[in-house]
């Protein structure tokens, strides 16, 4: 009787929650892919590869999410990643090989051949000195990205350029500066100990994954538990109301884009230490995907709605699907078609579902009467 009540009873109500939907969607995607391609999808290498690819993209998506929560958008995250990657790579190499490094040669892309002969690799410092160098590199990457984010913030809040145009402008500007520095050639051959950040593992868990989880946790706490985080939601939801309730909107917006830039800086370190090189144009494909995953994760493009858990689950879903496509053998271009259609479909669904729910509610009410 009790059991019957439990299953069929009217007292049981299922609470609708977006997070639950994402968990279910992820499980479904995972199961479907595992059934379709059991040997390939569930293989150790594929899961490992996914675990290495998720973090850098995930952190970029978090950067996009912070900007979108405030009602704006940050199209410059990829350019920020590029420029901070290039500057920190130059700092890293010139600190590691202080005597032998010829900066002009490095920027002409000759570095790779030099290092292939082994003449440079021998002199990399070890121990505490290398550790300090890596710390400086990380600081430079995050610092440069922070400055770029600050620039975005100033343009959006003080000068009040619409976020799309401001970040479009900085995107082009930063891309140009990176091109001027490197002339389009890649910088490669970082010291081995630096690569540990992007491709090492602690036990079986990849280091970038740990960094990503820490970042996601930090952003989540920041958004939900701090004054500034709450203000970002408020400004995104209704700027005028936020202003009247005593928030300094300008300061909040500057800090929002600063956060977005800092997160892009963290993504930079993971990216350049995973692929062991940096070049203008790395990660351009991530821009569309970042917007897609943030919207997929339940963040409203109008600002003020959304949370980290949704976006993180969205990232996992997207990566699982992406690696599924990889296994099936879709081309990059066809994947773009699918991302584009998903972006459009998800926004359509987001538009339709609340309307249908409203309709049903109205009908139910009229039936009751």
């Amino acid at each position, binding site marked *: 009787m009790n059991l019957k009540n439990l299953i069929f009873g009217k007292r049981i109500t299922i609470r609708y929650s977006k997070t639950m939907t994402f968990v279910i969607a992820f499980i479904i995607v995972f199961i479907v892919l595992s059934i379709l391609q059991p040997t390939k999808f569930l293989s150790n290498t594929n899961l490992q590869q996914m675990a290495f690819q998720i973090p850098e993209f995930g952190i970029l998506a978090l950067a996009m999410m912070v900007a979108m929560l405030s009602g704006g958008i940050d199209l410059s995250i990829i350019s920020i990643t590029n420029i901070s990657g290039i500057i920190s790579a130059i700092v890293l190499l010139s600190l590691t090989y202080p005597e032998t490094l010829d900066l002009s040669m490095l920027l002409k892309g000759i570095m790779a051949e030099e290092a292939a002969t082994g003449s440079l690799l021998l002199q990399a410092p070890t121990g505490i000195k290398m550790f300090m160098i890596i710390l400086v590199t990380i600081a430079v990457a995050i610092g440069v990205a922070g400055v770029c984010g600050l620039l975005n913030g100033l343009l959006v809040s003080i000068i*009040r*350029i*619409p976020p799309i*145009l401001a970040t479009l402008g900085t995107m082009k*500007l930063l891309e140009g500066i990176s091109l001027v520095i490197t002339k389009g050639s890649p910088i490669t051959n970082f010291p081995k100990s630096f690569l540990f950040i992007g491709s090492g593992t602690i036990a079986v868990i990849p280091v970038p994954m740990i960094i990503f989880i820490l970042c996601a946790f930090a952003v989540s706490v920041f958004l939900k538990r701090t004054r500034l985080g709450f203000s970002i939601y408020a400004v995104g939801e209704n700027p005028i109301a936020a202003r009247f309730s005593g928030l300094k909107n300008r300061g909040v917006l500057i800090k929002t884009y600063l956060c977005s830039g800092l997160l892009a800086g963290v993504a930079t370190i993971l990216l350049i230490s995973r692929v062991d090189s940096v070049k203008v144009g790395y990660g351009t494909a991530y821009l569309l995907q970042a917007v897609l995953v943030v*919207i997929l994760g339940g963040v409203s493009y109008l600002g003020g709605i959304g949370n980290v858990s949704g976006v993180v689950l969205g990232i996992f879903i997207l990566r699982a699907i992406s690696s599924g496509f990889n296994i099936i053998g879709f*081309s990059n271009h066809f994947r773009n078609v699918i991302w*584009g259609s998903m972006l459009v479909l998800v*926004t359509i669904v987001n*538009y339709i579902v609340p309307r249908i729910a409203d309709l049903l509610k109205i009908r139910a009410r009229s039936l009751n009467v």
Partner: protein
Amino acid sequence: MGRKFLRSHELYLFLLIVVYSIIVNSISKSFLTAENMFDILKSSSIMGVMAIGVFIVMLSGGIDISFPAIATVSMYVTVRLLERFNGNLLIAFVMASTFGIMFGCVNAFLVYYFNIPTLIVTLGTSSIFHGAMLSIAKIPHIYTVPGYFFEFSKKYIFSWVNKEGITIGFSTMTCTMLIIAVVSWLILRYTMLGRGIYAIGGNLEAAKRAGFNIMRIQFFIYSWIGFLSGIASILYVSLVRHVHPFNLMGMLLDVIAAVVLGGASLAGGSGTILGTFLGVGMIYFIKNSLIFMKIPSYWDPVVIGLVIIVSTGINAYSKTLGRRGVTIIES
């Protein structure tokens, strides 16, 4: 009229172009010559046609970033089809613009019926169109195009030969751009449709209450930019004589920079076609002068980025200053 003209954005932009070209000319003497000027007019016509479309979208308060994809796809499909069948230039223009209108209608459908922000719609459709073309087409490059394409770009409405024996003239491409500009200007100025575009740019809800047919206006806006992308793509083929799947995609930011420089704002409802033209002219002057001043081309994006930031910055900041005395509400 006089005072309004003296305060207009277009006048300042024109003066800026004049001052800038005098400065460049003092560095490199061959900049301000009839040859170079007509050359700029000719090569800027592709961007000019696209910029008019983008301007109209921005006037309505939206943004379209899918137009390079639309142009690339309609260019590819048209040239591929015309390779097989006999055709002429008119058929090419009609075909490309028809494809453009079709793609534009997809955008309009999504924008109107589902109320999705235009940036997100066009970001999505851009990668759908371009990605679909690249994944369906086995070879997305076409190196030999039918002859009538490049005969078009060689024709002049009127021309003369200078002392060094170089033909200088008013190209048919420039003429195409001017015709399109005049038609767009007439539509914007003298038809209900055009006034409706201004209206929904000013305030969508107010336009709806005033009885404008929003659906018709939105479909016109996005199919017009599709149409113009089709025209621009044929101009592009006739100028460069081959089809490349990525070249036009790189024009996106330059065109938006030109339109913004011309005085259009993303909030909608402001700007003129003349301003857009001067914006395109300014961008081409800058790019062209970099070559004359022997500055390497990788400085291009830096300059374009700065132009976008500075021009939108001045626009936005002057509005903020203007508002300051009026209201205390500040979002």
